[in-house]
C-alpha cells in the first residue's frame, strides 16, 4: 500500500494505524478518540465504576499506568467518581527512581492526588535488600509484596476501587500461562468483585487495548518516555508465552482477543457450577489467605520457618 492510499477511514488524513474487528485505518486524532471510546465502553459495559467511587490508580510511572491515568483523569468525573494515584516504591536501584520521577511529574501536571508507599516502610527493608542471594525469585517475591502494598495504599487513601494498567497482551498472556500450568482456579479467579474488609474490587480498563495501541496512544499524545526495564523483569514462562502469542497475533490477528473471550466463557460456565471457595484470615497478620499463614508472612519469615 502506498502512502497516498493509506488514509483514515473516517476523514481521509494519513493513517497511523490499521485495526481489525471492524477493519479500519485511523489517523492520529481518530485513533486517540477510538482508543478512549473503547476504554469508556468497556468500563460502562462491565460496570467498573459506580457514582461516589474513589478510584485508586496503581501508577508505576511506566507506560501502561501512565496511559491509564491519562485516560481515567477526564472520564471519572463524568461517571461521578474521583481519582487518586498510588505508587509503590519497592526500592529497586537504577529503575524505580526514574519511574517514580515520571509518576510525580504526571500527577503534578494533571493535579492528581498522589500517595507513595514504600517496601522499606511497610516491610522493614527494600526489595533489593530482600533479594540478595535469591535474585531469580525477584518477580515472585515482588508480586506477592506489591499486592499487599497496593492493598495498604488503597486503605490509606480510602479508595473504593483499584484500577491497574494491565493491557490486552498482559491479560492474554496470563490466560495462556494458566492454561499451560493447568491452573484452573487461577484462570477462574476474578478480582473485579473484591472481598469486603480485605480487598476492594480491581478494575482493568486498559484490557481492551493492546500494548502496541497503548504505546501508539502515548506517542501520539506526547507522553511516551523510554524508561529503563525492571532488572528483575520476566519469568521464563511469561517471556516464552509473550513471544509465542506475539507470533500468533501477527499470523492470526485477533488471537489475544479470542483468548480473552475464551476465559470469559470458561468463567461464566464455571461460576454456575462451582460453589464459592472458603477463605480464612492469616493467623499472623489477619489478611485474607487460603491457608493458615499468608504468602507475605511466609516470605518475610514471620512464621518462624
Amino acid at each position: 500500500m502506498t502512502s497516498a492510499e493509506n488514509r483514515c477511514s473516517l476523514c481521509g488524513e494519513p493513517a497511523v494505524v490499521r485495526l481489525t474487528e471492524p477493519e479500519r485505518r485511523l489517523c492520529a486524532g481518530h485513533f486517540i478518540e477510538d482508543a478512549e471510546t473503547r476504554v469508556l465502553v468497556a468500563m460502562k459495559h462491565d460496570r467498573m465504576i459506580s457514582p461516589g467511587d474513589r478510584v485508586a490508580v496503581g501508577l508505576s510511572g511506566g507506560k501502561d499506568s501512565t496511559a491509564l491515568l491519562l485516560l481515567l483523569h477526564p472520564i471519572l468525573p463524568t461517571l461521578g467518581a474521583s481519582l487518586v494515584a498510588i505508587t509503590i516504591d519497592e526500592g529497586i536501584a537504577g529503575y524505580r527512581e526514574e519511574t517514580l520521577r515520571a509518576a510525580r511529574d504526571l500527577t503534578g501536571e494533571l493535579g492528581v492526588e498522589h500517595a507513595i508507599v514504600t517496601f522499606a516502610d511497610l516491610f522493614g527493608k527494600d526489595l533489593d535488600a530482600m533479594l540478595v542471594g535469591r535474585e531469580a525469585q525477584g518477580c515472585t517475591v515482588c508480586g506477592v509484596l506489591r499486592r499487599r502494598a497496593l492493598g495498604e495504599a488503597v486503605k490509606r487513601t480510602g479508595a473504593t476501587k483499584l484500577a491497574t494498567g494491565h493491557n490486552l497482551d498482559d491479560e492474554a498472556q496470563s490466560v495462556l500461562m494458566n492454561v499451560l500450568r493447568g491452573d484452573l482456579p487461577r484462570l477462574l479467579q476474578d478480582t473485579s468483585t473484591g472481598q469486603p474488609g480485605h480487598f476492594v474490587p480491581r478494575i482493568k480498563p486498559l484490557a481492551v487495548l493492546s500494548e502496541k495501541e497503548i504505546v501508539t496512544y502515548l506517542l501520539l499524545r506526547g507522553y511516551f518516555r523510554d524508561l529503563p526495564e525492571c532488572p528483575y523483569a520476566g519469568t521464563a514462562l511469561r517471556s516464552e508465552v509473550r513471544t509465542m502469542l506475539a507470533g500468533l497475533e501477527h499470523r492470526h490477528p485477533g488471537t489475544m482477543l479470542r483468548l480473552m473471550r475464551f476465559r470469559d466463557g470458561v468463567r461464566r460456565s464455571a461460576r454456575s457450577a462451582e460453589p464459592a471457595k472458603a477463605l480464612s484470615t492469616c493467623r499472623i497478620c489477619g489478611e485474607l489467605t487460603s491457608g493458615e499463614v499468608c504468602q507475605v508472612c511466609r516470605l518475610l519469615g514471620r512464621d518462624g520457618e
Partner: protein
Amino acid sequence: MQIILPDRSVRTLSCTSAPIEEILLEFGINPTTVIVVKNGKIVPEDVTATEGDELRILRFSHGG
C-alpha cells in the same frame, strides 16, 4: 532507504520499494512488537517504503 533499528544502529537497504512488514520480518522483527515511524510519522506496517525513506523502528519495553 535507511532503517534505524531498535538498538539505534542504522542500516541502509538498497531496494527501491518494499512493504514495511517484509522489511521487519527480514530483520527478524515481529511487526506486532514494534511501532514504525516513516519519515517522522507513525505508519501501519502494510505501507510501502521507497528509496530515500527513513524508517525508525521503536520497540517498546516490557515490565512497565
